[in-house]
């Protein structure tokens, strides 16, 4: 009998203990007028399929919190506290983590969710729970506008900017021919909106092919052979990591003479995988390149990368996005507190500040942000060309200095 009891208490007991611990664990905090801390949440896919894009955002936000708390004195003296959760690309896990965070006291007012399916699932919940969400910019995350903001321009807007750049630099009589080849999932297909296709038609760019491929496709020769038959001048994609590598590899092997137009996925994380492949390709980013060595904002960010022993793999535009996220919170909330005082600071008053960001340039202009009541994705973009493994400005019309303003791709019903 003893043996049995021991067996049961040994095994079943440990199982139960795990479950019980899960039940019991849970922080409890009290609420104050002027809070002791301002909790900020980041729920991202840090190790799953989007990791190479999203992953560096967590260290970016961590470093920025350090910067805000140490250098800027927090928000009116109150420090930010960042909680990072990794949902490994599963919306269901993201929802659970969100629910757990929103139930803590004080609850975080800000949720950065750089993962499209999770963001899409949380859009309505964030509004219901009276928090503010910063999401990647597919239309379904942001509209109808509620408490949601895009980290950057809509993917379709970026694509339109890229296409416009091609048109602007076009020398021949005929229309430029562009072939789309992109990932067959939410992020990859976020550029394929009716507004985008209408815009292409409007400015005189021919979309000659649309090809989709899967994340686990290892050889894109077949896709590119199909595309080659349509004789495109440029390829347009919205993917990252192995995606663009696969495309350009097949392009090279087939001896095609086309270059790639990419969005945020075409940043350093991708290009570093094989710089020679991407020579001459275009990336539409929302921030200044790390290669602008004498830019003070870039210097600051690089200093933090170095001081915190970040690896080169974390030196990507999502690292900067982490900074942007924290700095936006800092500015909006500081302004709100300065205007109405702590006791009247509400989500609405913070959103009032956010909605009046106009050409705000944190980090000395590494990024440029404009939000309005209607426009929830900041339209400022920089167009870069890959040259010698570096991202150098490719110029572009319709902006000031480095930044260009993206054509408005907001769906008509939400304008």
């Amino acid at each position, binding site marked *: 009998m003893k043996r049995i009891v021991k067996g049961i208490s040994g095994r079943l007991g440990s199982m139960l203990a795990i479950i019980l611990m899960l039940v019991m664990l849970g922080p409890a905090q009290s609420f104050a007028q002027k809070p002791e801390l301002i909790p900020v949440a980041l729920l991202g896919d840090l190790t799953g399929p989007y990791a190479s894009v999203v992953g560096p955002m967590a260290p970016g936000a961590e470093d920025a919190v350090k910067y805000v708390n140490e250098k800027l004195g927090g928000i009116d003296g109150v420090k930010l506290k960042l909680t990072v959760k990794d949902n490994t690309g599963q919306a269901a896990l993201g929802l659970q983590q969100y629910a757990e965070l929103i139930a803590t006291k004080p609850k975080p007012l800000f949720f950065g969710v750089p993962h499209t399916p999770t963001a899409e699932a949380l859009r309505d919940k964030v509004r219901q729970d009276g928090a503010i969400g910063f999401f990647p910019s597919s239309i379904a995350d942001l509209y109808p506008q509620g408490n949601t903001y895009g980290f950057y321009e809509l993917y379709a807007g970026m694509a339109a900017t890229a296409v416009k750049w091609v048109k602007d630099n076009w020398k021949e009589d005929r229309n430029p021919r562009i072939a789309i080849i992109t990932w067959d999932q939410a992020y990859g297909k976020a550029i394929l909106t009716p507004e985008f296709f209408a815009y292409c038609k409007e400015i005189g760019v021919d979309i000659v092919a649309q090809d989709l491929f899967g994340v686990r496709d290892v050889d894109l020769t*077949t896709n590119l*052979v199909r595309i080659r038959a349509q004789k495109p001048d440029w390829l347009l994609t919205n993917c990252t990591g192995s995606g663009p590598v696969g495309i350009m590899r097949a392009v090279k092997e087939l001896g095609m003479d086309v270059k790639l137009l990419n969005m945020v996925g075409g940043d350093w994380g991708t290009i570093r*995988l094989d710089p020679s492949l991407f020579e001459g390709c275009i990336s539409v980013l929302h921030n200044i390149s790390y290669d602008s060595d004498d830019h003070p904002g870039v210097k600051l960010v690089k200093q933090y990368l170095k001081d915190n022993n970040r690896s080169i793999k974390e030196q990507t535009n999502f690292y900067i996005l982490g900074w942007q996220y924290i700095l936006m919170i800092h500015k909006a909330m500081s302004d709100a507190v300065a205007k109405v005082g702590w006791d009247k600071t509400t989500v609405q008053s913070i959103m009032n500040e956010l909605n009046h960001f106009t050409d705000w340039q944190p980090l000395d202009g590494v990024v440029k942000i404009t939000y309005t009541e209607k426009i929830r994705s900041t339209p400022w973009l920089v167009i870069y060309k890959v040259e010698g493994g570096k991202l150098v400005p490719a110029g572009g019309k319709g902006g000031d200095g480095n930044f260009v303003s993206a054509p408005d791709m907001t769906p008509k019903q939400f304008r």
Partner: protein
Amino acid sequence: MLSLVPQFFVSGLLTGSVYALIAVSIVLVYKSTRIFNFAVGELLALGGYFCYSFVVWFHFPLWLALVGALLMAVVTGLLVERLVLRPLLGQPLLTIIMATLALSVLLRGIMLMIWTGYDVAFPKNLLPGKTVVVGSVAMSAELLWAFGIAVVAFATLAYFFVKTQTGLRMRAVSQDHELAMSCGINITVVFALTWVLAVILGTLAGSLMGYRLALAPSYTPLLALKAFPAVIFGGLDSVTGALLGGLIVGIIESMVGGLIDPTMGEISAYILLLAVLLIRPEGLMGLKRIERV
């Protein structure tokens, strides 16, 4: 479009050789242990990472890195067999299959710890050769190498199984465990050897594809999903079948993807799989011992 058929065919064939490597890896384990190895994807990614690390961290030439990765594959195979499968010997099969699933999660964790979740890529131009163009058909040097290495691997494997006493014993074990034991065959050694071979094949596939594209714990293991229909095409029991199945899946995927719609490439393999299962449930080369009503 029809003029492109030769290109589609060749591309499919070359990629199919990599699928075949994975399919054979699955079949080897299934044949001798009746275990469907759900961890094959993670094992192949791990192999790819080993090869990458030898190149990048220790600056080995590629061939030596591959040899190193294969040695690591031997170690991994032995460890997997010893730590995961042997303690479960004699337990219900589904439990062991479940254990391979848990193993895949565990391996993912290990990969994330060592190499992080970010994409990594090999330095380029380690493999000699340029794209070969025959007529209108272009063949990538890397895929040709992959094809060549796969062919060598299969030839070695065939020689090993047919000509050596150990190979004979392994084949014997795959037919009847108890009988093999009664004949004095040490089946734990055979199982360990099976896992080693399976991990070696996975390592080859992982290294080749990792070299061609990039490696990440999230998508590199997904490559294994490509091999699942290949395995059934050939019949779970047949190494030759898995080999052919891999090539066929590669070709179908490329042909359907090229001629109809690229997104249909992958599911066309599964549709055909359903058809094969209904018409010839034991697969193309499956043995008659199949479970059937």
